[in-house]
């Protein structure tokens, strides 16, 4: 990566009794990037962010901030700040007092604190009159902004986010995702965000790290992870996917193991007798008209059609008993009836070969 590493994890492991929550994580976080760590619940992402923020210490491994070892430095000595899932706004304080809290701890005088709080209210598009408002009187979205303002008042080198948007309704979440993205550009700070929602991750981040069972499975841009997932878990985690088990038959040719795949002349980088998984996203599968060609084709029966607004999804039953998902834009809707025999095809250029140990 071109930009400088600001936070570095080296073989970080965290055990709780006999349970390993984080298993030898090594990760570089670049200065100024928006990194989202995504994983299902129990994948260790919360443990990870707590270690990064200094609320827990790892069992082994080291953490470096701008080259300095901070592995055992407590949270109050780190120049980083976290926005909590519950937001952790102080209920006995006003909006202004909440925002000023880190400045008060730092010993700033009242006038300077107030001036900074007013700036932050403006940055987060909260009315100046909110300065004296009780935090508990604010709406969900307003509280998010207050929590953000408070974290920014601390002026951290890195901002951590522990799924702060998860409790909000869909529309508000979408709005705040955009605002967060804009705020990231505006402030130029490093944002590290954890969530279980892939949609949130793709909407906001420069880079995504996928976690599973205490390990980072893959890191990359949203497009990289979507198009070239490292394993079946990532492939399935990143939305709808069709996976075909295949076996090489020599010379780059291959056969489907679960259902017959009619392969044309195109080849895969697969040795004879080697097994792998061929992945195709639903939007790259076509309904073939008679005589139309594709690198790979197969027969099936139309089972279901789901209208998803701008897109339409089809479920096609395959001879082996599995089902295949096809997705089209609503304007390119396939005109068929349930039970129709259909021929499907896709090109290998739009597929990805997953090799797992």
């Amino acid at each position, binding site marked *: 990566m071109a930009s400088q590493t600001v936070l570095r994890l080296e073989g970080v492991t965290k055990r709780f009794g006999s349970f390993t929550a984080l298993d030898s994580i090594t990760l570089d976080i670049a200065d100024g990037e928006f990194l989202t760590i995504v994983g299902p619940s129990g994948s260790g992402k919360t443990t990870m962010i707590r270690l990064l923020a200094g*609320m827990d210490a790892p069992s082994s491994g080291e953490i470096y901030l701008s080259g300095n070892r901070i592995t055992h430095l407590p*949270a109050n000595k780190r120049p980083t700040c976290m926005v*909590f899932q519950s937001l*952790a706004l102080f209920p006995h304080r006003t909006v202004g007092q909440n925002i000023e809290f*880190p400045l*008060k701890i730092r010993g700033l005088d*009242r006038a300077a604190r107030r001036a900074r709080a007013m700036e932050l209210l403006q940055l987060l598009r909260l009315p100046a009159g909110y300065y004296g408002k009780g935090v508990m009187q604010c709406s969900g979205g307003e509280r998010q902004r207050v929590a953000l303002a408070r974290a920014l008042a601390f002026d951290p080198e890195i901002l951590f986010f522990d799924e702060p948007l998860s409790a909000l309704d869909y529309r508000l979440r979408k709005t705040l995702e955009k605002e967060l993205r804009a705020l990231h550009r505006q402030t130029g700070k490093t944002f590290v965000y954890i969530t279980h929602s892939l949609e949130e991750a793709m909407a906001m981040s420069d880079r995504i790290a996928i976690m599973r069972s205490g390990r980072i499975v893959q890191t990359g841009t949203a497009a990289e992870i979507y198009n070239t997932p490292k394993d079946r878990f990532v492939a399935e985690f990143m939305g709808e996917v069709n996976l075909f088990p295949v076996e090489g038959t020599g010379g780059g040719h291959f056969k489907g193991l679960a259902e017959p795949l009619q392969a044309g002349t195109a080849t895969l980088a697969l040795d004879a007798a080697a097994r792998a998984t061929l992945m195709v996203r639903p939007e790259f599968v076509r309904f073939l008209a008679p005589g139309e060609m594709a690198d790979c084709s197969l027969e099936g029966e139309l089972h279901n059609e789901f209208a998803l607004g701008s897109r339409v999804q089809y479920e096609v039953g395959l001879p082996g008993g599995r089902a295949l998902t096809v997705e089209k834009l609503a304007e390119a809707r396939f005109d068929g009836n349930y039970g129709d025999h259909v021929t499907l095809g896709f090109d290998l250029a739009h597929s990805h070969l997953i090799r797992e140990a």
Partner: protein
Amino acid sequence: MPHKPITRAALLVYGILTLLVLYLPIAAIAFASFSKARYLSFPIERYTSQWYGKALESSTVSDLIVTSFKVAFAVMLVSVVAGFFGALAFARYRWRFRGVFQKFVLLPIFFPQAVLGLALLMWFNAIGVTPTWQTAIAAHLVWIAPIATLVIAIRAYGFDPALEEAARDMGAGYWQILREITLPLLWPGVVSAGLFAFLLSWGNFPLSLFTTGADLTLPEWLYAKMVSGYSPLVPSVGSMTLALSLILLLASAACIRLTGRRRRRANGGEG
């Protein structure tokens, strides 16, 4: 939805009965304290306030008040401090023996107080401590500190541990967190616990009876005078004891309301 007339009538009767059962005996003592007769008897024939004057002049009564107050005040202070940290251990922190602690710390509340008093007296004798009003403080604490802990713990359960973590994350040290976050949020519980502690100690009889030795508290004196050598001061001293409890209750209610209002008005930025 409006209630049926029969329901309304039943609620009214219930309310009046409850108030009568709860407060009539206490009102009777107050009336008796104004009776001119030297012995408790109803109906009261002539009223006077002379017993209050006599009680206030009496050095016995002022000694009693001072002793009871010293005990109650000390019990209150220790209970609140122990209860505050005990409540944090009870409700906020996860530690190995928390489950055991939670059960055992509350158990003394349910001990028969007479047995507890006797047991403590035996202990004081065994370790060679002469019972005085000071040993009564220790005895009261065994029963009252757990109650104070429980009262504050109930408050502590309702507070998000992330608040302290967030404060710490923004650079606050232990004492700053305690002063800025933990204490203000637990404050209503602390005030209630202090009030409970004072009043329970102030009115306690069974523990004091066993553990004050030669010293006397107000409830002990009231009992002693009823058993032998009745004094016409008994109803007036009893009423004054009660009055002080009431004043304290009202004062703390006002205190809680005031701090609430000041907090709401304190928009200036100073916590």
